[in-house]
Every structure is written in structure tokens, then in C-alpha cells.
């Protein structure tokens, strides 16, 4: 590694240390001069930090330094106490993560119950979900997808790293259609208008 490359790696390291949020290769490229091979530098840096107390991790094609996962019990630090999620919110988050993009009606089909107004709000506020494209079906309903913040929070490199995703897909359980047309589901039988309104 020549002097120039070493300097570029130092800059990259400093950038990633200083950044408040994970940075994409493009963002890094804008701040590193000229001919730097960002991909190579990142993999070098990742290797340098592999066995250290701090690791370079990739999240949603963005890069950030994070404390090593195996030190979680050894770190005596102030925990970020966040509001404990309700069971409904955890389920809705899981449905959005595993079935995305999903509409509110999909979520209600799967849970068999209407989703309270606050549930989606809480997940949005946490920065874990965001609206995706509207689905090209009657009513063009809004869909929901997870964010980079969600992946970052749960140490997932990408959505395909969700635990058990492959098994769920293989077992056909990621089918989000109503299990049966005449199975009673709150969404269909009660207050559908009210539910729709909330979606907007």
C-alpha cells in the first residue's frame, strides 16, 4: 500500500468516525479525492477493524463504525431507554419487515384485527418504517416498508438478513392474501371506512 492509499484510508476512517449516520459509498466518494478506490479501501478498513472492539459494518449499502456485537454484555454504558413497544407494534413491525411492501389491509388480514392508529405512528416516529409506493390495485392503497434506520437498529446488513426469512418464504407463510374470503376479519366486517381514513 503506497503512501497515497494510506492517506486515503486515513481520511475514510476519519470520515466514518465523524459521521453521525451511516454513509454510502457515493457520499464517501464525494469527500475523498479523485482516484480513490472506495470499495477496496472499505474492505481494507473492515479487515483492520475485524478483531477490534469497534467494527466497520455495512447497513443497507451504507457504512458505519459500531461497537463489536460480542461485547454487548461487557459494555457498561448508559443504555438508550426507549419506550417499550406494545405487542401490537412489534407484530406490525415484523409484518412490515417480512412482508414488505404491505398495505394496512394486508397487515389486518394477517393479524385478523384492526390496527390502531397509534401503532403505525409509533413505528414511524422511531424511524423504522416509511411509506412505500402506492399499490396499483383498486383504491391505490399506500404500502409500508422498513428504513435504513430499522436495519441499523437491529444490526441487519440488508432485509434479506432478517432471521428466518428464507424458511418463512419456503413454507409459503409470506403469502399476505387473506387466508380465506369468508373467514371473518375485522377489516372487512367492521368500520372499514374508518380504517381507510386512517390510512390516508
Amino acid at each position, binding site marked *: 500500500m503506497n503512501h497515497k492509499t494510506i492517506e486515503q484510508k486515513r481520511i475514510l476512517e476519519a*470520515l466514518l*468516525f*465523524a*459521521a*453521525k449516520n451511516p454513509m454510502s459509498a457515493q457520499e464517501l466518494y464525494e*469527500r475523498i479525492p479523485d482516484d480513490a478506490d472506495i470499495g477496496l479501501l472499505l474492505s481494507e478498513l473492515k479487515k483492520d477493524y475485524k478483531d477490534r472492539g469497534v467494527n466497520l459494518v455495512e447497513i443497507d449499502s451504507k457504512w*458505519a*463504525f*459500531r*461497537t463489536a*456485537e460480542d461485547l*454487548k454484555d461487557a*459494555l457498561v*454504558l448508559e*443504555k*438508550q431507554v*426507549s419506550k*417499550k*413497544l*406494545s*405487542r*401490537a407494534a*412489534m*407484530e406490525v*413491525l*415484523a*409484518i412490515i*419487515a*417480512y412482508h414488505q411492501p404491505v398495505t394496512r389491509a394486508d397487515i389486518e388480514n*394477517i*393479524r*385478523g*384485527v*384492526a390496527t390502531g392508529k397509534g401503532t403505525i405512528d409509533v413505528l414511524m416516529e422511531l424511524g423504522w418504517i416509511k411509506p412505500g409506493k402506492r399499490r396499483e390495485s383498486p383504491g391505490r392503497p399506500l404500502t409500508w416498508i422498513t428504513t435504513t434506520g430499522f436495519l*441499523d*437498529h*437491529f*444490526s*441487519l446488513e440488508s432485509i434479506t438478513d*432478517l*432471521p*428466518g426469512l428464507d424458511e*418463512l418464504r419456503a*413454507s409459503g*407463510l409470506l*403469502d399476505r392474501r387473506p*387466508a*380465506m374470503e*369468508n*373467514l*371473518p376479519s*375485522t377489516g372487512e*366486517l*367492521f368500520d372499514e371506512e374508518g380504517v381507510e381514513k386512517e390510512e390516508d
Partner: protein
Amino acid sequence: MNSDYDKNFEEDKPHSPIAYGDIMMQADKKDDGALFLDIDGFEGPIDLLLKLAREQKVDLIHISILQLARQYLSFVDKARELSLDLAAEYLVMAAWLAYLKSRLLLPKNEDEEEELSGEEMAKALAFQLRRLEAIQNAAEQLFKRPQLGVDIYARGMAEGLDIDIDTSYDVDLYDLLRMYGDIQRRKDNSTYELIEYNLMSMEDAMAMMTRMLGKLPKKGIFSVWTTLTSFLPDGNKDKLLIKSSLASMLTAGLELAKQGRLEIKQDGLFKPIYIRAYERNREKDES
């Protein structure tokens, strides 16, 4: 398999002191009048059904839907005995399960080919339960992962990255010269003297027309019709003067017509304009 999950949820809802298993046990004791059943602990009828299914302690693939339906219906009966207000959706599910139960128990009616068989309905319900269980397990797995700010940390004192905005001004020599030209022009204009043009004023036109009208041959109270252009000064080569004379004469003519001193007519657009004098005083005298 689900014990951790249940425990988690119990923590989420500290106001519901009895876990589901306890409820069932107590509900089985018919003599226990002190029983209270927290229906808020369930996320809807499917969730309740799933809890009941887990009581069967078999893989959901082999679950007996018939048995499950019986369990659910007896649960709802007990809730009613205890005068619990069950949300409508739980009652709808109870009705549907009662119907399913009858479909499963009664011999298949060959005439009803259009409708789903009891077995198909049971299968769909089993799928719904398995799918919900899968997502509940997934949620549990997800929240077991190391979480940022709890197990894994970002840099505590990130300096942040600054953006230094370097403003450059988009000004070239042309802009500068143009601007100087503007200043000079403005300065010149401030001492600008009006060029005197040879124009016919309204006052002149009025005087001229009045004078000429008096000279026109008359028939009674009217003079003969005369074209407007004949009022223009003779032998004029200055186009600007001709134009302004024409405009002023017309305006003067309109003013005089308003005063009742002449009449104007035009046979059509761009046709010659005719004028004749009108002497109201003479008319009054004659009458």
C-alpha cells in the same frame, strides 16, 4: 417455543396480571367466582385462537380445528357467564366457528358444490393461525437481535461532517458594462429634455374645427356633410403632424358632438367619417 414471547408481552402489559394459561385454568374452575378475564390481553380473535391452539401442544400443522372450535366456543360461553363484554369481532368469530363446526360434523352435502367444504375452511383457518404464529415468532427473533443503543453503540461523540459552502458570484464583464450603461442612461435621463414634436393639440383642433364649421354651407339648421379629413390643415408633409391632427380633430369632433354642436356619422369600419354642423339655437328660434 413461545414462552419467551408470552413473557415479553406480559411485561408490555403490566395491567394484565394473569397470563393466558392462568385464565384458562381459572376459567375451568366453574366455582371460582373471583375470576377475571382480561380480554384486552389478546390481539383479536385469531390471536386468541392461536393461544388456544397452543394449549393443544401439537404442531399447528396437525392441529384439530374441530377441537379448537370447541375450545373457543366454550371460552366465549364462559366469558358470557361471567358477564364479560366481548368485542363484536369475538362474537362474529364464535358464530363462524359454530358454523364451521357444523360443516365439519355434518355429512357433506353434494348439492353445495359452490361453497367451500368444512375441510377447506378448516385448512384456511389453520393457515391463518400458522401465518400469525410465524410472524409472532419472527417478531420475537427480531427483538432478540442486538439493538443499537442497547447492545451495540454508535460513536458517542461524533464530530459530524461539515459542509463548507463556497459561494462564487456569477458575474461577468458583460454584466458589469451593461450595468454601467444603465447608470449612465439613467443619469442622462435625469436631465433629459423633451424633444419638441410638431403636433396638433386638442385646443388647436377645437378652435380650428369650430372656425371651419361656421364656414360650411348650410341647409336649415344643418350644414352639409363633410369628411373629417377635409378639416386637416392643407399641404402638410409631416406624417406625425397629420396623424396627430387627425386624432385631435376626431377628439374635438366628438367633444363638439357631445355639446350638441355637430353630428358625426360613419358608414362602416375604416369608412370616411362625416361631420355636419348643427345649430340648436336657430332651431329654437325658428320654432
